[in-house]
């Protein structure tokens, strides 16, 4: 096979897979199933290869067995304790045994324990700065200008900024009040706040949905670009024209 044909064959396989997977939009069929299973098989096979080649070999095996000195690399002694990780990892596979699946709970428990232990620190690193940044000034410190100028005075809080901060505070409190389900409230003010909070949440969800739609459209546009521009326009037509 001529080597210059390889890129177009590669693109053609990609196009066939795209058409095969998009055929589900018409209806689910054996044609679609074939490509779905092929994709799953390829992904699983590649994952096994990558896990060994890019992760386990360098991170575990080489450290366990060590290496002799060669060009530019000093000798590294092996550290036998890494071998203990193998039985712990193998235990996880007992999940498929009806009789011994309790063994799989040992590595799962270790992972859960490690994960749980980190959560306090993780939670605060994630939300601490957000809580801190929610503490916004509600009183102006200057009336020299109403709207915040392009080059504001250092540390000054302008009236327009305060209005923005009040809107932020109202949104924050209203949205949070919506989630107070534990007790019944008869206060009109509080009920108004929860209703307002619900509206604001809906607006937020709408914005999130819009952004999600943008992603879905982009993924489809990219596939169309691959099929019609990369394959047909840039690959197939020049190849046919060249001959």
């Amino acid at each position, binding site marked *: 096979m001529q080597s210059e044909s390889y890129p177009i064959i590669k693109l053609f396989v990609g196009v066939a897979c795209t058409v095969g997977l998009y055929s589900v939009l018409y209806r689910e069929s054996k044609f679609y199933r074939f490509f779905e299973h092929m994709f799953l098989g390829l992904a699983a096979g590649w994952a096994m290869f990558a896990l060994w080649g890019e*992760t386990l070999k360098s*991170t575990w095996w080489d450290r366990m067995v060590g290496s002799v000195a060669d060009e530019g690399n000093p000798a590294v002694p092996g550290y036998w304790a890494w071998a203990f990780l193998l039985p712990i990892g193998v235990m996880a596979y007992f999940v498929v045994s009806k009789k011994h699946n309790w063994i799989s709970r040992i590595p799962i428990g270790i992972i859960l324990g490690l994960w749980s232990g*980190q959560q306090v620190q993780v939670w605060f690193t994630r939300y601490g700065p957000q809580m*801190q*940044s929610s503490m916004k000034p509600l009183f102006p410190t200057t009336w020299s200008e109403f709207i915040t100028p392009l080059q504001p005075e250092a540390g000054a809080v302008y009236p327009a900024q305060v209005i923005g901060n009040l809107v932020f505070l109202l949104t924050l409190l209203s949205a949070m009040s919506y989630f107070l389900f534990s007790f019944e409230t008869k206060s009109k003010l509080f009920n108004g706040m929860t209703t307002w909070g619900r509206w604001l949440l809906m607006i937020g969800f709408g914005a999130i949905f819009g952004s999600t739609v943008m992603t879905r459209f982009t993924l*489809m546009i990219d596939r*169309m*670009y691959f099929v019609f521009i990369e394959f047909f326009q840039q690959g197939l037509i020049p190849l046919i024209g060249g001959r």
Partner: protein
Amino acid sequence: MANDKTIWEKLQAIDRRVLYTLLMVIATVSLFFKVNVPTKPGQPTKDLYRLLVDADALPEGSTVILQSDWTQSTRGESAGQMEALLRILMRRNIKFALLSVADPQAPLVARNVIRAINLERKAKNQREYQVWEDYVNLGYFPNAEGTSNAIAANFKTAVAGRKETPPGSTTPLDVFQSPVLAKVSKVEDVPVYINVTGSKTSNILIERLGGRVPFAALVTGVMGPETLNYYQSGQVKGVAIGLNGVAEMESLMEKGLEESGKPPVQSFAGETNYGRGMAYYLALHTCLVLMIVAVVVGNVAMVAARKKK
């Protein structure tokens, strides 16, 4: 009977396959028009551009960590982001250490983009980015949480054992012997940690590395709204969201950035700046118009059909 249906009822019952076909046709036709749709970059993208291009934030020749956590499943958004990012890094001679935590396919996909951008540079007689000298591939690390913790605790230990083959050699050497990581022993030694992601690994990085290193994220439209919370609180210094973010980045690369009270940031005018982002941007707009029209028609038809009854 079907024939008794009014036009309004028929409009509400358009077969989904008709809409899918219409969508694909509109997207495909739009792709053949090379139009640079005008865009006004948002502040998150401007801050990202300033972080990447401003010499004070990221000095020329310095090393960044580039965590690439996307595969072909989000190519539409992430490939454009990665291409724009690499163009900037390569033009500014910024070295990068590439790693992935989200998917075993991610390192291969990232290497393909590096190869494509290198080919683009070669065609323009520009210096190609060399593995070892300009970038190293640290490979795939399973378990995003564990890896991020390890990087936070001790970067050198976290990536110990990873090797890369210098050009002209056949023997892989430890990545810390390369010029890329020669001066990096902990994560705080890099001026920026960049995450191009098709999943939520940006959140995991913020949780584990928060406050240690300036963090930049290029995320999908799905993750965008969530990531903006971290941008507002300063946990992320700059964000590009989805295809819109790519188009904004490309526009900034072409025109540069001028903001009141801040020093201007250079453009890369004359280079290949408009790429995948602008190529898809018109199609995105036409698809969104179709969706809006479909929603309006569906609702008008519903109201009209109810009034008829």
